[in-house]
């Protein structure tokens, strides 16, 4: 998504009127565009103010006690964020720990999953992802802003690398476009998350992750998005599960990674 397209969607994003894939593309844009991040904040504040135009309505008296009972049953998140189990997690892949606040969670990947150590993906995985990618290429073209001219056609990618899952289902392919310093991410079989969690994407340069947006799979576990990525400085693409709204740094091990080297 370029700035002109972000301009067009600014209002719709602010009032929650974008479908998930467009919202994800918009968020990926503002993750790397300070101007639109600022304008989005302003527009979201305007949209939020609409709530104050609604007259208060006294809720039923029973709601208060029911609500407080529910609060009493729910533990609070720790400072670094503790989210409920994923609906589609496998028992083997989820290892929630009784960590202290600030300690990274280790529940998404196997113990010791290194940030920069990725084994080659099996050929069948890459093929499956490529087929899925082809099926949704039209959608990618719409959200990536190539205007249908094939700018981000797979055949024009400078590099194609597998995206490998760690400890749970999921696979995919990353298509890197050197001229634009962008990467097209196509994944499948990604599990559904609770509303309190999100898939966050990272570009990792010399072990230091930087957020590059959010991945929003559809109901079938497919997701595609275009993200900023410079393979001259970053070596690894990764996805982690984070509290809704994202984190400034990863708090879990990566569930998906791709090694990228120019």
């Amino acid at each position, binding site marked *: 998504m370029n700035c002109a397209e972000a*301009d*067009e*969607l*600014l*209002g*719709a*994003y*602010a*009032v*929650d*009127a*974008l*479908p*998930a894939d467009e919202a994800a593309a918009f968020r990926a844009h503002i993750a790397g565009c300070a101007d639109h*991040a600022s304008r*989005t*904040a*302003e*527009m*979201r*504040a*305007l*949209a*939020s*103010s*609409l*709530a*104050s*135009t*609604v*007259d*208060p*309505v*006294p*809720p*039923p008296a029973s*709601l*208060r006690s*029911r*609500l*407080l009972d*529910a*609060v*009493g049953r*729910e*533990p*609070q*998140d*720790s*400072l670094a*964020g503790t989210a409920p189990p994923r609906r589609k997690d496998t028992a083997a892949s989820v290892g929630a720990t009784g960590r202290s606040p600030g300690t990274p969670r280790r529940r998404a990947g196997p113990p010791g999953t290194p940030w920069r150590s990725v084994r080659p993906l099996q050929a069948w995985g890459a093929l499956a992802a490529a087929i899925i990618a082809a099926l949704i290429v039209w959608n990618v073209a719409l959200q990536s802003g190539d205007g249908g001219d094939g700018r981000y056609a797979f055949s024009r990618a400078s590099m194609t690398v597998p995206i490998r899952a760690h400890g749970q289902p999921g696979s995919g392919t990353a298509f890197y476009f050197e001229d634009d310093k962008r990467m097209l991410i196509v994944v499948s079989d990604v599990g559904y998350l609770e*509303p*309190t969690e999100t898939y966050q994407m990272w570009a990792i340069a010399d072990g230091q992750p930087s957020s590059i947006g959010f991945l929003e799979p559809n*109901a079938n576990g497919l997701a595609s998005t275009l993200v900023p990525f410079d393979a001259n400085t970053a070596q690894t693409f990764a996805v982690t599960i984070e*509290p*809704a*709204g*994202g*984190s*400034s740094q990863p708090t879990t091990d990566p569930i998906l990674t791709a090694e990228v080297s120019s």
Partner: protein
Amino acid sequence: MPDLEGDGLRNSSGEVDDTSLLRSIQRGEQDAVAALYDRYGGVAYGLAFRITANAATAEDVVQDAFVSLWKQAPRFDPERGQVRSWLLTIVHHRAVDAVRRRAGRPERALPEGPEEFVATTGRPEELAEMVLDAEAVREAVRQIPGDQRRVIEMAYFMGMTHVEIARETGAPLGTVKSRLRIGLEKMREYLRPRVLE
């Protein structure tokens, strides 16, 4: 019992302010949730009912929103965002999700976690302050031309996506996008000088 009598700052009406309530909630004091509910339960229920048009669903939305606030409160910095705005953002998100679920539409509203809220709405300066002045916002909405106001209300209060609005109104999708943006910009033009006065 939260320490509302001790260290809480009070507003002109002698009530403990929202920030102090939030701090109490962050310390795990459930009575502070009750105090926040007593303060904003009516606004939250009014918003939820306006969006869902269903009393039972609105109750569920409000309950979910307060539970969500309770759970996520430790990660919210009240110095960087208004508690009331965050609460109503959660209510809006949950209500829109409920409406979309009921209609069999898969799209979820935007995340409403503390980090997302602060990043996209929670700035205490300038426009974020205007949520305190409901009458100014109402007047700003009245200033918006009817076709722009309608699409904003369809999105915000009915949970419709731009595609659904285009289908409903018969307007081209690009026109709907423009109306949403220009309508909000007109709100901004009206409110900014009043906020900064």
